[in-house]
């Protein structure tokens, strides 16, 4: 049986700064996972990824990352995405400096 599709966000790194970014429903690239578009439909996910890959002047290495819904927008399901969302644990100067 094919694996059931779980919700995803499109994520990448910004070309100029390298920052982790997320695709929003209105086609922006946000620094905040909470603003990302959570995609539950597999075909749509593929389409949105293809659109992201079509913006090499903005982002690098776009891929689909698992996420789950919450009151505060999409949340990571895996620790790697959790760290990508917040920034490194040793200094308070990654994304967490802006987020908190």
């Amino acid at each position, binding site marked *: 049986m094919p694996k059931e599709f779980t919700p995803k966000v499109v994520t990448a*790194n910004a*070309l*100029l*700064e*390298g*920052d*982790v970014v997320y695709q929003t429903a209105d086609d922006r690239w946000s620094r905040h996972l909470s603003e990302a578009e959570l995609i539950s439909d597999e075909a749509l996910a593929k389409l949105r990824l293809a659109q992201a890959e079509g913006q*090499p*002047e903005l982002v*690098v*290495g776009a891929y689909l990352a698992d996420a789950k819904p919450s009151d505060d927008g999409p949340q990571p*399901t*895996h*620790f*790697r995405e959790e*760290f*990508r969302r917040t*920034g*490194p*644990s*040793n*200094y308070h*100067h*990654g*994304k967490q400096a802006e987020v908190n």
Partner: protein
Amino acid sequence: MYSYSEFDAAFVAERNRQFRAQVERRIAGNLTEDEFKPLRLMNGLYLQLHAYMLRVAIPYGTLNSRQMRQLAHIAETWDKGYGHFTTRQNIQFNWPELRDVPEILDALAEVEMHAIQTSGNTIRNVTADHFAGAAEDEIADPRPVAELLRQWSTDHPEFQFLPRKFKIAVTGSPNDRAVIKAHDIGIQIVEREGEIGYRVLVGGGLGRTPMIGKVLSDFVSQEDLLPYIEATVSVWNLLGRRDNKYKSRIKITVHEHGIDDIRARVQERFEVIRPEFSGIDVALLEQIKTAFAPPAFRQDGAEVFETTYKTDPIFRSWADTNLIAHKAPGYAIVQISLKAHGATPGDATADQMRVMADLAEFYGHDELRISHEQNVILPHVHKSNLPALHAILKKHGLATANIGLISDIIACPGMDYCALATARSIPIAQQIATRFDELKLEHDIGELKIKISGCINACGHHHVGHIGILGLDRAGVENYQITLGGDHTETAAIGDRTGPGFSADEIIPAVERIVETYLDQRHDRNETFLEFYRRVGMTPFKTALYEQDKAYAAE
């Protein structure tokens, strides 16, 4: 200090100019990422988890004050005010922006530094004993040979697209501080009937299939070294498994063919290419050697040192752990710990870099070294200057007296920075150091090397740690596997796995139980952790790690 020629400077300037144009074309959209990536990697620029990362080569870990200050300037101007010194004696900047990298490379070139061959399937930074030129046990300074190899390998047309990256380390002492047995090629300077030559090891390496290097030749003469090394790399270039990334390193080639077959092939190739080496390399080596001549050592008294040692316990404790005997009378080798308890192993702020540069200039004949253990060394300091030097180090958080102790941990960047990681390394190192500082046990435990990697690539050398910790992903949760009994020195050994791994919450208590087992059962304070492990083996540790829990659970 070795100084590069006009040709070298022109070569680096040209490379930088090319890269600047490539970056501009990438930003303008005229190069795709697929086209750009190999070009940026050729210049040491990676894209990591949260940012770009620029890896700068510090050949054989040697720097002068001017270079260290320039690294500080780069950290402050284009990064977040610090740099990360690595196990291959390089420095990594974790936050440069793409547009700034050409500027950074130009700033490096101003002080004869660059990022060439710090990535890619080439011969990487040649590393060497960080006490080179200063150690009491040294037969000869390993850096001239390392520099010769650096010049030979940089832009070597045959070796730009090797099956995989290639790492060479050189030691001039019988006591190996350069981890030569865990390198693709390890070179040890030896003396035979009054003649200096080289013992060549091959096929060591950590990573997925850790192996200890094997002896390829017991003695290669100075005239034969370069053709012999070239023959070795050349044989592997031909035989190396390009079909499979995991089998491409020379350690696998040596393993699959057997050392005798490889030796015969190297010999055959050596005989073919030997006549091409006219002797210019040996002349060059002689010339390089003069640039590494020892500084003019002073003949001062060391009374200030003796008095301070007797009267100041903090100084004494630091001197006992962080100083090493120097070959010149009245001198000491100073190890500056970049492992303050709770700090990130290997990180130095721009201010700290400047302080170390100043100290090297005022008290250390303008020389600094980066150790593979992620610390900084001032190789030549007169003992009479040590109290003053220590006071300045203390002011800048650089006087931690823990070299070789449990908190002097090697840790790779792990998942806090590295795109390849399967778990974090840095917080584990920070917590272990903090915990044992709280317990005030560190000096009682004595020599104990913990090394942590965030994935099987083993940048943190966990396989050769007395206690090795490998971070893994177990079903979406960080999990840490422990190995014991690893050794990176001349008696190198790969550690043994204790059993199932531990969660992030369990790993610090697990390390504590390992250490308690040792403290409870060692003969006396003179028996080191490694000696203890070699005597008693895994059993008591297994009990402490796994059986005790079961016993409690059954109660």
